[in-house]
């Protein structure tokens, strides 16, 4: 049974009446998806609730597993290899807590306004601030996309796949998922690929981690070998950037809108986000546990790429474990390629006022699909340039993401507290306090990084060394 009809006979804001409304291809597909949701909601019982969850989950899991991307997994791998089991295990869990706080706001915004993030910033605050945030997003997304192809290339390199072939395979897979021209199908295909991120969990079990040390790390946030150094701060920022980045805000809100979530679905949107965060945390912690073996065996991994990590791990976890590790890196890069290029295309369509939905046929969404295809193709081509300092680029991308996050979060904060567009869904006081804390933490981490670059000996002096 469909939900109660919208009161079409009382148009607000000068909008047309039901008879005048033009229904597009996008509306038809979304409408059919919503009919299924309404039917599941109308029935009672646990199975209907489970079906409702199945129908409504997607953007949250995708954004969280999408953010466990190539550079993120390499950051976690570098963390485990350089710092072992200690401070960073609980720290990474904390960063996913921050991600939940931030991403939940985009679910509310998307469900309440049915508008994408870029669209809302432009319309509510004007083009001046709109362009600032769009440029931040565009530059960040493009750099990140390059690193995803780096990860795919490096991961497939472990199996002897030539770089051009690996990059081409990734592009073909990305374009194939889009050929369905259906948000639902695209989402399910991408979710299926994203589930591969959990491959790091069995790899961690193959590494036989010291569970006592793991428990001790979560209980005490110790040890922290080396103390407060520039290397520590870069890893700290890279790990934060591995969980909270601007593209996530834009993607989840736009995907929430494209999927057609409404105010009634916010509870499931929250479950979706938390579930995604739990899965992503499991994969992140597992990766750190695996590479902590390199730390305990005193193997230097500062300049490792995915293939080197897998090769170094091979004598310690076996060929199967090392192969799964390399496959996990490929998967991480692949899912992020899909989600990040989609986030760019959504933002472009919203700002340029062109149709922007994965439910659009190619003919009706030329601009949207062109941005998506072009971003991916150019990033893929750049990765094939010989002699590019790939490892450094990967870590720096996460650092840049952290630096760009506070301005993006302030826009999110302003929008989600805007009673005129949010109505009774404005953020409660405690959520605002947490969001403010996240902004302060991110800005503080960025400032510390800046100090460490400008005055490299500052922290040594502070520690009296």
């Amino acid at each position, binding site marked *: 049974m*469909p*939900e*109660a*009809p*919208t009161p*079409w006979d009382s148009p*607000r*804001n*000068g*909008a*047309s009446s*039901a008879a005048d*409304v*033009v*229904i*597009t*291809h996008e*509306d*038809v597909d*979304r*409408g*059919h998806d*919503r*009919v299924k949701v*309404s039917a599941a909601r109308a029935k009672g019982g646990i199975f209907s609730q489970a079906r409702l969850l199945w129908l409504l989950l997607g953007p949250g899991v995708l954004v969280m597993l999408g953010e466990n991307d190539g550079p993120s997994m390499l950051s976690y791998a570098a963390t485990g290899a350089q710092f072992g089991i200690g401070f960073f295990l609980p720290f990474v869990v904390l960063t996913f807590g921050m991600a939940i706080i931030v991403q939940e706001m985009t679910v509310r915004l998307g469900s309440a*306004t*049915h*508008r994408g993030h870029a669209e*809302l910033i432009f*319309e*509510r*605050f*004007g083009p001046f*601030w709109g362009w*600032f945030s769009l440029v931040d997003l565009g530059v960040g997304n493009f750099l990140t996309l390059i690193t995803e192809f780096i990860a795919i290339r490096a991961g497939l390199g472990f199996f002897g796949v030539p770089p051009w072939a690996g990059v081409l395979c990734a592009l073909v897979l990305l374009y194939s998922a889009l050929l369905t021209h259906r948000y639902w199908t695209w989402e399910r295909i991408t979710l299926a690929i994203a589930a591969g991120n959990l491959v790091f969990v069995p790899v961690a079990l193959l590494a036989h981690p010291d569970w006592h040390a793991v428990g001790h790390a979560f209980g005490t946030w110790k040890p922290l070998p080396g103390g407060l150094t520039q290397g520590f701060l870069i890893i700290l920022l890279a790990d934060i950037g591995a969980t909270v980045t601007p593209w996530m805000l834009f993607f989840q809100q736009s995907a929430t809108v494209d999927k*057609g979530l*409404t105010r009634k679905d916010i509870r499931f949107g929250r479950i979706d986000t938390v579930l995604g965060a739990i899965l992503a945390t499991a994969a992140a912690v597992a990766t750190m546990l695996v590479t902590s073996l390199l730390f305990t065996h005193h193997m230097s991994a500062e300049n490792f790429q995915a293939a080197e990590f897998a090769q170094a791990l091979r004598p310690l976890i076996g060929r199967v474990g090392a192969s799964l590790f390399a496959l996990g890196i490929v998967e991480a890069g692949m899912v992020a390629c899909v989600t990040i290029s989609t986030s760019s295309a959504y933002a472009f369509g919203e700002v340029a*006022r062109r*149709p922007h*939905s994965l439910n659009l046929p190619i003919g009706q969404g030329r601009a949207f699909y062109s941005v998506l295809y072009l971003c991916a193709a150019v990033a893929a081509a750049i990765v094939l340039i010989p002699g590019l*300092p790939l490892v*450094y680029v990967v870590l*720096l991308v996460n*650092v*840049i993401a952290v*630096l*760009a996050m*506070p*301005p993006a979060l*302030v826009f999110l904060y*302003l929008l989600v507290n*805007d009673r*005129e*567009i949010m109505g009774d869904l404005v953020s409660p006081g405690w959520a605002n306090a947490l969001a403010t804390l996240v902004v302060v933490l991110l*800005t503080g981490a*960025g400032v510390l*990084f*800046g100090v460490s*670059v*400008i005055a490299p000996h500052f922290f040594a002096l502070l520690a009296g060394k």
Partner: protein
Amino acid sequence: MTAKELEQLILAPGERELILSSLERDQLAGLKKREIPRRHLKGPELLVLWSLRIYLLFMLAVVLYQVLHGAH
């Protein structure tokens, strides 16, 4: 081909009513062209936004320095 003509090609009998009843008004692509009223930012909000903008530019310069320093 106009949007109206496209619509006639796509929709089966009764489908229009089904779509309209299953979607909220603002979810229809055609109605999204209606703009949300502009909100003018106040002093403290502008101060925070400009501060963060300057912070971002400064930090990007720091990162650039770090990259060049690392390259050498």
